[in-house]
């Protein structure tokens, strides 16, 4: 008995000291029951960890910022961080663990489409909610996912007309890595190229992760194209730009216009190989607003790396937590389906500008931008859409703003066939 009393005394003394020393510590321990738990599931290890760690960091940064201003519904948000290990199967297991065991109302997760497809059944079957921050190929209409990255029409509908009209390029060579995202992007590209009076001379693919570009670049050289549209992903990007320059091609005459090449890839290849090429994304680190500059500074301080770069998926990882917070506040409870219903139509001033969740398909209104890469590894923004545009995940199959395929009722498969 004596020992118990002594330990209670000790514990209370400790927690008193903790309260004095740091209010954060106090919240974590004494109010453990009064927190909202959320899942944060990205690859902390493996080949994709280089990018996915930065998404996890951005998510955690948003959570700590929300907690610093009092949390949501008067409760602190407690992230439960899991490691997807760059493996879709592990993603599935960890998502199940978060949803079933930890009973979180929402998970912020996934970078690749492969990992999203792997966790999707978990969220649909358990009526839970996933916030997905990456630009992706569209062709999905889940009622259990909030998509805050760009879909093809938000990367291409300004890009292709701009290439044809402003750059004056007419003959496209479409090149990509051989999997679903580049192939869906190529479909949208072709539709837009033909609509705008251009033509495509080739549509070629290289194995995902392959970095032997000799033959492909030679083909580009002899194809007679005047612009290359690249949907290449991963470290293949680096080898591609290097080979491009080394075979004597220049972005001044034959520019690479890319949909995946972000600040991370540019830093990895060495900016000198990308100078003069273009990328289309809703967010670039170089966006010249106070909101974005402060965001970059806060992120660098948060990860304790003064040279850290920010990019589109990272920015989406950050602002989607705030959209989630607003939805929780509106719903008045932290349960998946009420949050889902409340997030529809939520608006937020993100570092890239104004964003809004489309009530019909749970995708996000974003502002497309085009940047030209500079010698310092930053994109100089040379074209910005006047306003955020509507997300159309089925644009490759003829979806338009007036004729939505994916609505609150789900996917209209009849339209898909027709």
């Amino acid at each position, binding site marked *: 008995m004596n020992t118990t009393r002594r330990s209670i005394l000790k514990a209370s003394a400790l927690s008193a000291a903790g309260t004095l020393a740091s209010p954060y510590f106090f919240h974590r321990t004494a109010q453990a029951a009064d927190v909202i738990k959320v899942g944060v599931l990205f690859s902390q290890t493996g080949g994709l960890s280089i990018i996915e760690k930065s998404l996890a960091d951005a998510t955690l940064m948003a959570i700590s910022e929300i907690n610093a201003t009092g949390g949501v519904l008067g409760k602190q948000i407690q992230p439960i961080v899991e490691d997807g290990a760059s493996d879709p199967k592990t993603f599935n297991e960890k998502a199940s663990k978060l949803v079933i065991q930890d009973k979180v109302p929402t998970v912020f997760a996934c970078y690749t489409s492969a990992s999203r497809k792997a966790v999707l059944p978990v969220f649909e079957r358990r009526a839970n909610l996933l916030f997905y921050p990456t630009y992706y190929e569209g062709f999905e209409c889940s009622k259990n996912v909030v998509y805050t990255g760009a879909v093809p029409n938000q990367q291409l509908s300004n890009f292709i007309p701009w290439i044809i009209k402003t750059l004056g390029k007419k003959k496209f060579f479409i090149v990509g890595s051989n999997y679903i995202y580049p192939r869906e992007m190529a479909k949208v590209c072709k539709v837009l190229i033909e609509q705008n009076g251009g033509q495509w001379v080739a549509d070629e693919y290289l194995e995902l992760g392959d970095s032997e570009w*000799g033959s492909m670049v*030679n083909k580009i050289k002899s194809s007679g194209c005047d612009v290359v549209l690249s949907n290449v992903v991963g470290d293949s990007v680096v080898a591609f730009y290097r080979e491009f320059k080394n075979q004597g091609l220049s972005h001044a005459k034959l520019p690479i216009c890319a949909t995946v090449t972000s600040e991370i890839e540019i830093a990895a290849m060495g900016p000198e190989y990308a100078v003069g090429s273009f990328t289309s994304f809703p967010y670039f680190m170089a966006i010249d607003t106070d909101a974005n500059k402060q965001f970059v500074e806060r992120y660098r301080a948060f990860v304790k790396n003064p040279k850290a770069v920010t990019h589109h998926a990272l920015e989406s990882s950050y602002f989607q937590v705030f959209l989630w917070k607003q939805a929780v506040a509106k719903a008045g409870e932290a349960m998946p389906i009420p949050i889902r219903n409340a997030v529809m139509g939520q608006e937020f001033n993100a570092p890239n500008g104004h964003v809004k969740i489309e009530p019909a398909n749970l995708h996000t209104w974003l502002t497309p931008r085009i940047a030209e890469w500079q010698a310092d590894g930053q994109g100089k923004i040379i074209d910005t859409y006047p306003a955020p545009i509507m997300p159309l995940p089925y644009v490759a199959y003829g979806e338009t703003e007036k004729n939505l395929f994916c609505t609150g009722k789900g996917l209209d498969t009849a339209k898909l066939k027709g």
Partner: protein
Amino acid sequence: MAEIIFIGLSLSSILLLVALGLAITYGAMGVINMAHGELVMAGAYVTVLSGIWLHLNIIAAIPLAFLVTALIGYLIERLVVRRLYGRLLDTLLATWGVAILIQQAVRLEFGLSFFGRHIAGLGVGLQNVTVPEALTGAITIGGVQVNAFRAFIIGVTVVLTFATWLLMYRSSFGVQVRAIMRNPNMAAACGINVQRVNALTFAYGSGLAGVAGVMMSGFKTVFPDMGTPMVVDGFLVVAAGGVGSLLGTILSAGLLGQINGIVASVTNDILARAMVFAVVILIIVLKPRGLFSYRGR
């Protein structure tokens, strides 16, 4: 057409560069060295680190990478492989373990990242190597535009292959190596220090992998997993060429590289890759010992 041949030649030289070291450790010594790819990766990291810390360019990094990876190879032979000669499958498992150790050592910055210390150039991130201006862009040879860096790789490969041939067939050290390949016990009986020759041969093969790494760093990203796919290609070349035959390795690298280059230009890269595998399977089925079989050990 000349451009396609050049690309094929360049693909061949890259294959040969990785396979040359394997031709020695696997072909001549009978060790399935799964850590070969990691030695290539180590060579690439030597280039990155010597660029950051010593301000050496990629050419100056070649001898340095050779020495560093040769030393690593020497240690692997002394500590692990030495105990496993003649046990082919055991060498596979043991060197695979070594491969994982080397990968993680780079990823965890030799364990320093646990203590919050970081070495610029190591860690999980992607690294890149600056190629000197003279080796970037294209040069014109006989009316054909060729990639300067690829031409440089072909040159380095030719020099290394010639050096390896001299070492193996025109030096007393090479005579000892070939004697051990034929019959280690008899070689020992003739007064050859088998242990010492084996250790040096393994170190030489590893050093070649390091040089391959330097060349790779010039046109690929450098990261801890980069070596793994390369070692697969290396084994394909050695197995198709015939274990233990330097000439077989050279010819099979040339053949597979050209097939890859020509099929890729006529159809596409994905089909070309499948074609290379099909040809290798065909060779192994028709000639199980490779194009140039060689009896040893």
